[in-house]
């Protein structure tokens, strides 16, 4: 027999999973917060002096490590890198914003996978028979309508953590790259791959526009609120009001940003962009002492992971989605 207390707890767990990411992102971070963690600011510490190509290598390597090793190695890398945000300009604030983003991704992914993933598939992925799984929680039978498995097992949670730390490791490294290098520095490293100039130009425009999108969104939402949108709604519904206002702001924001496109196009044309082949060129930034040190750290990380995998902490879980 399923007790009332268990039913209540099950529903609370269900609601926790869908509402927490939501409140974290719109309540704690906010749209203006996203702009902060996607914008380059001038500063001078170790990360700011590093070459962009080294940081791109960092993100490739840690995604590989998180994919091929057990979930807690991915967790250590994620939180270690997050802790190093302290050295950025306004470090605590950035750690706070990125930390909540990471937390919302972890909660969102775990709740998005762990209860749903068929035990047979988890068993295939972890190479453990279902009979050896540890049951953590038993859902009420009617939760199967939501697509839930009847039992939530520890193994499904490991499986979902494995997936989530692959994402978070990439996100922490990517944000670090965007916050400490100018768009031009990042794109220059791509030009080594012989990508045509127009594509590189589009990429620079795009990278510069991402923070501007958050900015215009924020302005547009605030204007809706000033005009009284959702003014009589209770406070705890505020994130939902913001979201509804955000949906209404999509087309105005898009038109606003695309209108500026003509000016950017004209200003590039007046500087004779693409007028003749040698007109556009790139200045490469040389490798410095910091870059060599950091590359050494990366090599060490790879070596340590290979050792960990050989010791038995590897988990080349086949991702099913």
């Amino acid at each position, binding site marked *: 027999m399923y007790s009332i207390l268990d039913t209540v707890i099950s529903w609370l767990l269900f609601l926790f999973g869908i509402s927490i990411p939501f409140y974290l992102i719109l309540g704690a971070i906010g749209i203006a917060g996203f702009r902060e963690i996607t914008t380059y600011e001038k500063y001078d510490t170790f990360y700011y002096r590093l070459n962009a190509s080294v940081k791109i290598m960092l993100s490739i390597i840690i*995604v590989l490590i998180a994919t091929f090793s057990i979930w807690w190695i991915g967790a250590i890398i994620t939180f270690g890198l997050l802790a190093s945000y302290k050295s950025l300009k306004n470090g605590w604030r950035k750690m706070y914003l990125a930390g909540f983003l990471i937390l919302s991704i972890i909660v969102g992914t775990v709740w998005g996978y762990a209860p749903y993933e068929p035990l047979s598939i988890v068993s295939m992925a972890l190479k453990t028979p279902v009979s050896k799984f540890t049951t953590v929680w038993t859902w009420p039978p009617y939760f199967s309508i939501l697509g839930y498995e009847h039992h939530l097992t520890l193994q499904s949670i490991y499986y979902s953590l494995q997936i989530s730390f692959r994402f978070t490791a990439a996100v922490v490294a990517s944000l670090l790259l965007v916050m400490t290098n100018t768009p031009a520095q990042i794109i220059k490293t791509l030009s080594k791959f012989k990508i045509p100039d127009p594509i590189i*130009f*589009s990429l620079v425009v795009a*990278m510069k526009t991402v923070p*501007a999108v958050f900015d215009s969104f924020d302005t547009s939402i605030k204007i809706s609120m000033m005009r009284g949108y959702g003014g009589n709604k209770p406070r705890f519904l505020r994130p939902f009001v913001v979201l509804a206002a955000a949906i209404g702001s999509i087309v105005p924001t898009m038109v606003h940003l695309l209108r500026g496109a003509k000016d950017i196009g004209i200003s590039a044309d007046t500087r004779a962009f693409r007028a003749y082949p040698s007109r556009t060129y790139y200045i490469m930034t040389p490798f410095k002492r910091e870059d060599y040190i950091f590359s050494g750290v990366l090599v060490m990380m790879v070596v340590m992971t290979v050792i960990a995998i050989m010791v038995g902490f590897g988990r080349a879980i086949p991702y099913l989605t």
Partner: protein
Amino acid sequence: MSFNGIKADISVPGMIPWEIVVAYFLIALGFVIFYSKKSGGLKGFKTVDFVYIGIGAAFTVVWEFFVGPLLDKIVPPGLTAFIGFGFFGRIVVLFVVAGLVRKPGVGMLSLAIFDILGDIFHYGFSGEPVFVFYEALTYGLFIDLAITVRRGNLFGDLRAGSKASAGKGGRMNPSLAAGITGAIIGFTWAFPDPFFYSAFFGPFLYGSIVNWQKILISFYEAIPGNIIFGIIAGLIALRVSRVLVQ
């Protein structure tokens, strides 16, 4: 370990034979090269077109990685298979950009830039360059084919006087035409993810398991949402491009 996270596994049970995939991409690439030789390729693009594409990619990144996942949270669990806001946002933004630029190549270029940008902001570069080619030559190519078929007037003719002549001579109402075009492209966009990704690139890159029941169900489930959002996106694209192309 393998090259940049690509396992290059072509022996997962149930996978689409690699010959078919290679043939598709060779034909697609061949068509693109042939057509760009004929039409002048990127030389026909103005600088402002590249700016449109860049802004569109930035918007798609913000939508797909920061806003879309939030919206997906409020969809009731049983419906998540039908409604993917992240993907719908991509449809809207890319249709708007395609409606503004209206030259074949815009679809592929937009998808390629969106992918590289997504790597910079979110995914890291693991698995590249497979994703850039896969998405550009499926989603992007479908848009470009539509532009080619409609001879540049993707979501309605925007030249001066076209509105007046739309009623005469049996030509279709522009909103209706935009909606239909959007629906058709939206429908074609239901194909790549289940058939190319789940049945080939997923196993190819990460060795994931191929489950044809899951693939077929996700294909059928994607169709209605994609068509509805294709129509909406077509109408938005018509509206935005009327405001901007003057």
